[in-house]
């Protein structure tokens, strides 16, 4: 286990270096002027471009730039954006909101998704199973922003249950609908995964033994079946936490939430690459690290799995 963890950690290093290099290279080095459109309708004066290039280190060779970027990242110095506002302070304001949103979304996924999956898996081919299969099919084919705009329109504009946009503080009660939107796609995946897993395990020998021992139905399902069936579901949920952070770009944009995603949405629209690069790097790091943790957790949850 320990050796496996170390090996995985070492394997992560080239992936992290590679992805961060791709991000840096793509954003700063490709043809196209990163400072275009910063001076209104007319082209920027040369003096401004030179000053900006110098300030953001664009006059140095690409590898030196990348080295500086890594050094700054490790020392926590994220620099300032084009408006001279500290990127780190903007991130510090935005993180808590996105984490709150993502945690709520994971909670919805777990509760609704697993609930629906168990319900449909236990009575395969029954009424509940059909309802779940069809509704997950629809959820799977609705792009997240369609779900978002439709709910915003129905609940916010037509019925008036919620405010169409979320306020600056982003209270938990305001985040319920955005979290549901963010969770919608994965909720369907979770339900289907749980269903498949339950259906598979229902045929397993240990379930038959448990029934033959005369255990109550509740105990068989609650203790024996669920424990084993939920392992793949939990790992899926874990992997998706990292993915969700970047899914939040769309959701936070729609509901005007001032989290990481909203920051990214505005940075893209305003073409402020000094925000895009560190935010993208952090999102990638979160994604890779959650994936690693989930992989390691897998062995703890399921002792049958041996890493070697």
């Amino acid at each position, binding site marked *: 286990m320990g050796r496996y963890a170390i090996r995985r950690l070492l394997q992560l290093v080239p992936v992290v270096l590679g992805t961060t290099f791709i*991000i840096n290279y793509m954003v700063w080095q490709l043809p196209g002027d990163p400072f275009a459109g910063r001076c209104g309708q007319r082209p920027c004066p040369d003096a401004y471009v030179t000053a900006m290039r110098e300030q953001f280190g664009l006059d140095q060779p690409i590898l030196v730039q990348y080295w500086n970027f890594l050094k700054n990242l490790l020392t926590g110095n994220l620099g300032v954006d084009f408006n001279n506002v500290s990127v780190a302070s903007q991130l510090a304001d935005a993180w808590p909101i996105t984490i709150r949103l993502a945690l709520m979304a994971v909670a919805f996924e777990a509760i609704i998704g697993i609930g629906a999956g168990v319900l449909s898996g236990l009575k395969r081919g029954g009424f509940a199973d059909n309802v779940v299969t069809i509704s997950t*099919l629809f959820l799977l*084919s609705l792009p997240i922003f*369609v779900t978002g*705009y439709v709910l*915003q329109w129905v609940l916010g504009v037509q019925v008036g249950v919620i405010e169409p946009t979320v306020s600056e503080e982003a209270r938990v009660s305001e985040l319920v609908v955005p979290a549901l939107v963010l969770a919608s796609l994965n909720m369907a995946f979770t339900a289907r995964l749980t269903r498949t897993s339950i259906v598979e395990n229902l045929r397993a020998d240990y379930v038959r033994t448990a029934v033959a021992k005369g255990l109550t139905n509740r105990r068989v399902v609650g203790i024996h079946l669920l424990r084993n069936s939920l392992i793949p579901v939990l790992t899926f949920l874990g992997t998706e936490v990292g993915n969700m952070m970047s899914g939040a770009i*769309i959701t936070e944009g729609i509901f005007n939430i001032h989290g990481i995603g909203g920051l990214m949405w505005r940075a*893209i629209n305003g073409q402020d690459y000094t925000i*895009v690069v560190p935010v993208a790097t952090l999102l*990638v790091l979160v994604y890779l690290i959650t994936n690693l943790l989930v992989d390691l957790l897998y062995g703890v949850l399921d002792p049958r799995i041996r890493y070697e």
Partner: protein
Amino acid sequence: MSEPTATQDLIKGADEPAVNVGEVQDSRRSLWRDTWDILKRRKIFWISLVLLIMFLLMAAFPSLFTHKDPEYATLAKSMEGPSSEAWFGYDLQGRDVYARAVYGARTSIIVGVLATLATVLIGGLTGVLAAYFGRWLDAIVSRVGEMLLGLPYVLGAIIILGTIAPAQSNPSKTTIMAVVIIVLALLGWPIVMRIARSAVIQAKHQDYVQAARALGAGPLRIIFKHLLPNSLAPILVYATITVGSYISAEATLSLLGIGLRPPVISWGIAIADHTSYMRTGAHALLFPAAFLSLCVLTFVMLGEAVRDALDPKLR
């Protein structure tokens, strides 16, 4: 497949060209025949097939569905709601929402299908080659794939598109469509590569491959005649569902302003154009969104029907 005759046929097929191989494929126990037998009994398959044909017709001959010009704008009718004259109402520029939704099908389907095709070609080829030749080729392909998969999908597309085609730029119709297709395929191929790679690694040491090699078949012949058909089924299933998710990804990118943009007619652009007018004219946003969702649903349903038919575990 386990009858001795079938196996003999396969071995015979290895040293004699295509004719015999064709016979084996046409024999009644073939995978595709089995799949078709299962598919034609499924209601979901027929529903999705009818929808698919409808969308394909819409993409090829939009004038069959509407006689209106999607570019014709009457500003006086801006944001007018649905009426008997225009079933879905008019958009911000006073253009017919229904006509634009019909004409939008072509863009979405072209982008979805071409991007999927590119993904499958790049992913399938690299996967098969990496698994067959192994060693350093496998190492390089796998690492590059890992790196690209390390970028969350939306984020990756945003970074690439935001740089080469930022929201303020104004590329031509074909350029921007090509760029979007390339970006989708570039970020998507590692998944197909993994599917093909694992299928080939499993098949590589099977007796029939050894037999073919013993009979003197070269790498090209082994790959195309013996290994590739094995990874075809899982890739086909993945590809069908992927068309749907690429269509939805294209719309998402267009919504962000970095995917397709006017004068291209697309559902994503139609939605993006009207997000700020939700209170006054939600119809201009909801109808294209409905077309988009229905189209994605079609491909997801078709993919599920094909998967159920091809995956023996679920039978």
